């Protein structure tokens, strides 16, 4: 993923009371930006939390995202897309306020099949940054949140 919420989005959409009340301007801009990404929209991603180098984004199960028709389990690529978006979002709300970010590498470990019909939620943490690089860890969960579906580690660019 690559994103640049400072360009073009501006401070728009005072949507009134919502679950996102109290978030910082920066987080709000980042959320609006992420929810406007065509692929994030195609997967119906919803930003749940964005704060301080951490992001939580969820998406619903859908028939057309199935990778194994025998079981109805979503394709691993769907989990990749969610993890990548979530990691990029966590970078964008890091306190060092990067201007933009892009994925350098992302490794995903698939621990178990996500249960068909359940929402998938990714939580990413930007656990370290250098001048030019952000290091991330993320997990993907379904409703059995004690038992992760997948884990990811990644390196992202940090453009200041």
């Amino acid at each position, binding site marked *: 993923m690559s994103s640049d919420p400072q360009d073009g989005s501006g401070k728009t959409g005072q949507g009134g009371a919502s679950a996102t009340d109290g978030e910082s301007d920066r987080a709000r801009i980042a959320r609006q930006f992420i929810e406007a990404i065509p692929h994030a929209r*195609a997967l119906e991603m919803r930003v749940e939390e964005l704060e301080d180098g951490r992001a939580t984004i969820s998406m619903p199960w859908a028939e057309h995202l199935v990778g194994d028709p025998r079981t109805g389990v979503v394709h691993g690529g769907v989990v990749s897309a969610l993890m990548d978006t979530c990691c990029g979002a966590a970078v964008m709300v890091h306190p060092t306020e990067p201007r933009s970010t892009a994925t350098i*590498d992302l*490794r995903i470990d698939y621990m178990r099949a996500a249960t068909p019909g359940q929402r998938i939620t990714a939580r990413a943490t930007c656990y370290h940054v250098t001048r030019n690089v952000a290091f991330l860890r993320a997990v993907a969960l379904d409703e059995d949140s004690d038992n992760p579906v997948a884990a990811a580690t990644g390196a992202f660019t940090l453009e200041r």
Partner: protein
Amino acid sequence: MADRNEPLDRIKSRRDSALAALVSGVPYMNWLGIRFDRRGDELTAVLPFDQKLIGNPMLPAIHGGVTAAFLEVAAIIELSWAAMWEDLESGRIAPDVAVPGSLPRLPKTIDFTVDYLRSGLPRDAYARARVVRSGRRYASVQVEAWQDNRARLFAQATGHFVMPQNG
């Protein structure tokens, strides 16, 4: 050894229908629009550009998650294809979309690591996978993806898979 005098159209139709059966059974591949070109046993995955694949509307660029998904699909299909080739050619199996249960089970991804080398342009993308090692239970696969120039990769990946255990 295969029959040297087998009619060409029969050979092609056997291979093409087996490939179609492998690919068409997966809803997510169809949704992304991924298809496969075949030259003998060599497969090239093709991802035609579409607006919904965009991850950065400013540049614009293909979503990194789409790139990862495309590479993973290319790896899984190549691995299944390579694993079933002998059985297909010898006539032991005949995968057919119309015959449920005739399709081999797909390998399961253990882990998948993507290297993003440059941003994906809003154009068609191509990928070819190579099975580096395939044992009875585990396999390691390498994938390369490019757009305009074969030598200028925009992403590469490596992944490990558990092979389906057909009883």
